C-alpha cells in the first residue's frame, strides 16, 4: 500500500503530462535517438570515414538514405554516429549547469545574507553577457574541442540555473513547514534535502529541460563556427558547416543535419513545455 501511495503523486503528474500529445511525441523522438545511439554500430551501414570516390555528392537514394558528402561518405551513417555528440552535449552541459546552479541557488536562497548578496552580484555580472557569448569566450580560453565546449556551455548556463533555483528555494523557505522542521531540530542539510528541494524541484526540472535544448543549439553553433568538435568527427553542426560550400547544388548536405538539430531541440522544448504544465497545475489554463 505504501508503494502505491508514493506512486500516486507521480501518477497524478503522469496523468496530466500524458494529455500533452506534443510532449509525448517529443519523448518518443528522444527515445528513438537513444535507441539509435545504443545500436549505432548495427544501424549505420558504413563507417564514419568510409570514403567512396565513385559516389561523391550522391543525392539521397535507397542506397544512400541521406546521400553522400564531398568525400563520398554516407551521410546517414555519419548522422547515426553523430547523434551521441548532440545528445550528450545537451545532457552533460545542462547537468554541469544544474550541479553548479542547484548548489549555489539552494545555498543562497536558503541562507540569504551577505553570501547571497555576493553570489547574486556575481551572477548578475555573468548574466550581462548572453550565454552564447559567455560560452564563446570560455571556448577561446579553454581552447576548442568537444569537452571544452561542453564545459563552457555548462558554465555559461549555470547563472540562469542559480537564479531559478534561488527563486524557487526562497518561495519554499518562507513556508511554515520549514519553521516546523526547525523547531523539531532538523539539521540544515535535512531541511534543504527533505523539505526545500522536493518542493522547489518543479521549476528546476523545467529549466534543466529547456537548457538541454539551448545547450544543443549553442554547442552546434560553436561547432558551426569551427570552435567545437573538429572534423572529421561527425558532429551535426560541423557537418552542416562543412557542407555549406556545396549547398547550392547539394541541398542534403546542409538540410539533413539542420533538420535533425531542429527536431531534437524541438522535441526537448516540447517535453519542457509539457513538464511545466504538468508540474505546475496552477499555471495550466
Amino acid at each position, binding site marked *: *500500500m*505504501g508503494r502505491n*501511495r*508514493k506512486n*500516486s*503523486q507521480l501518477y497524478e503528474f503522469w496523468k496530466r503530462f500524458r494529455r500533452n500529445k506534443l510532449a509525448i511525441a517529443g519523448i518518443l523522438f528522444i527515445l528513438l535517438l537513444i535507441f539509435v545511439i545504443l545500436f549505432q554500430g548495427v544501424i549505420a551501414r558504413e563507417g564514419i570515414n568510409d570514403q567512396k570516390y565513385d559516389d561523391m555528392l550522391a543525392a539521397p537514394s535507397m542506397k544512400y538514405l541521406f546521400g553522400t558528402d564531398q568525400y563520398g561518405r554516407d551521410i546517414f551513417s555519419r548522422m547515426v554516429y553523430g547523434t551521441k555528440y548532440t545528445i550528450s552535449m545537451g545532457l552533460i552541459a545542462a547537468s554541469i549547469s544544474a550541479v553548479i546552479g542547484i548548489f549555489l541557488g539552494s545555498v543562497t536562497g536558503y541562507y540569504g545574507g551577505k553570501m547571497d548578496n555576493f553570489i547574486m552580484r556575481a551572477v548578475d555580472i555573468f548574466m550581462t553577457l548572453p550565454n552564447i557569448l559567455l560560452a564563446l569566450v570560455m571556448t577561446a580560453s579553454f581552447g576548442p574541442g568537444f569537452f571544452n565546449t561542453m564545459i563552457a556551455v555548462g558554465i555559461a548556463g549555470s547563472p540562469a540555473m542559480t537564479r531559478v533555483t534561488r527563486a524557487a528555494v526562497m518561495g519554499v523557505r518562507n*513556508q*511554515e*513547514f520549514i*519553521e*516546523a*522542521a*526547525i*523547531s*523539531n*531540530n*532538523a539539521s540544515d542539510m*535535512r531541511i534543504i534535502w*527533505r*523539505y526545500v528541494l*522536493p*518542493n522547489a524541484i518543479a521549476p528546476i526540472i523545467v529549466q534543466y529541460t529547456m537548457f538541454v535544448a539551448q545547450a544543443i543549439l549553442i554547442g552546434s553553433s560553436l561547432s558551426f563556427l569551427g570552435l567545437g568538435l573538429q572534423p572529421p568527427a561527425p558532429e551535426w553542426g560541423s557537418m552542416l558547416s562543412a557542407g555549406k560550400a556545396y549547398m547550392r547544388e547539394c541541398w542534403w548536405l546542409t538540410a539533413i543535419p539542420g533538420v535533425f538539430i531542429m527536431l531534437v531541440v524541438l522535441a526537448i522544448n516540447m517535453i519542457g513545455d509539457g513538464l511545466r504544465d504538468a508540474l505546475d497545475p496552477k499555471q495550466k489554463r
Partner: protein
Amino acid sequence: MNSKVETRDLKKYFQTPTGTLHAVDGVSLKIGERQTLGVVGESGCGKSTLGRLIIKLLGNTDGSLFFDGKDITNIDKKELRELRWKMQMIFQDPYSSVNPRMTVSQIIAEPLKIQNKLTGSEREERVEELMKTVGLDSRYRMTYPHELDGGRRQRISIARALALNPSFIVCDEPVSALDVSIQAQILNLLKDLQDQFGMTFLFISHNLAVVKYISHSIMVMYLGVSVEQCQTEELFGNPLHPYTRALLSAVPVADIHHQKKEIAIKGELTSPINPPPGCRFAPRCPCSSERCFQETPKQKEVKKGHLVACHLYE
C-alpha cells in the same frame, strides 16, 4: 503560581530599507503552568513575532526570556536542541504548515525520527496513537496532505506538535483559516488536549471570541506593545484601555439582541517603522491628550492582576 514562560521587556527589531521596524517593543508577560495566554491584536501588531521569539525560532534583540524558571535568553546550541523538544508550535496556514511531499505518517513521525530514541516499530505505534489522539482516522496514514481538507491538515499539524510530549505549545492563529464548523472542532480538540496532557498554551489570534473561549488570561497587543493584560473575565467585563474597548465594540456579534456600543476609532494602523515616542495608539485614540504624544505609558498594575499601559489610569 509558578510561571511556565516569562518574558521581560522582550524586543525584536528588524532592519528594513526604510528604517528600523519595531516588531515587538518591550513585552513582559507570564504564563502559568497549565494555563493558556491568549494574545490578540490586529495584523502587524507583532503577535506572531512574539510567538516565534518565545519558542526561539527568532532571536530577540533585547530583553530576557525564561522557561521553567530558567533564563533561556542566551543558551548554546546543545541546550537549544534540548529545549526545542519541550516547546512546539502550531501554525496558521494548514496548507503551508505541512510538507506536501511527505505522507501523513511521515510528517507526524518526523520529530520522533530526528530525536531518534524509538525504534521503527515503536515509532509506528506512536504515530498511530497520536493520530487517534487528534481524531485522525488511521486510514489516512499513507495519504498526502493535499488530499485532505483544512481541518484534517490542522490535525496533522497538532499531532506533529504533540509527538514529543511538549509542555508548552505556541498556537499561531490555528483556526483562522478554517470554516466555522471546523474551527469549533479544532478549538474543542485543543481544550481537551490541554486537560488531558496538562500543557501550557500561548494562543495567538485576531479573533476575540475565539481567544475568549480558549484562554485563561489575555494580552492585547498594539504595534509591538502590550496595552492590556489580565484574566479573561476581567478583560471582557472591565476593559480599561481605549484600544481594548474599541476592539471589543467592533466585533460583530451573532445575536440580534446585542446592543452595540459604538466606540469608533478613526484612521488605520500607523507604521511600526521608526515609531515616534509616546503612546502607539495615541493618533487613533478617542481620549488622547498632549501627554500621550510625548511620553510612552508604562504598563502598570491598576487592579490586582490587571495591567494596563495608558496614561488614563495613573
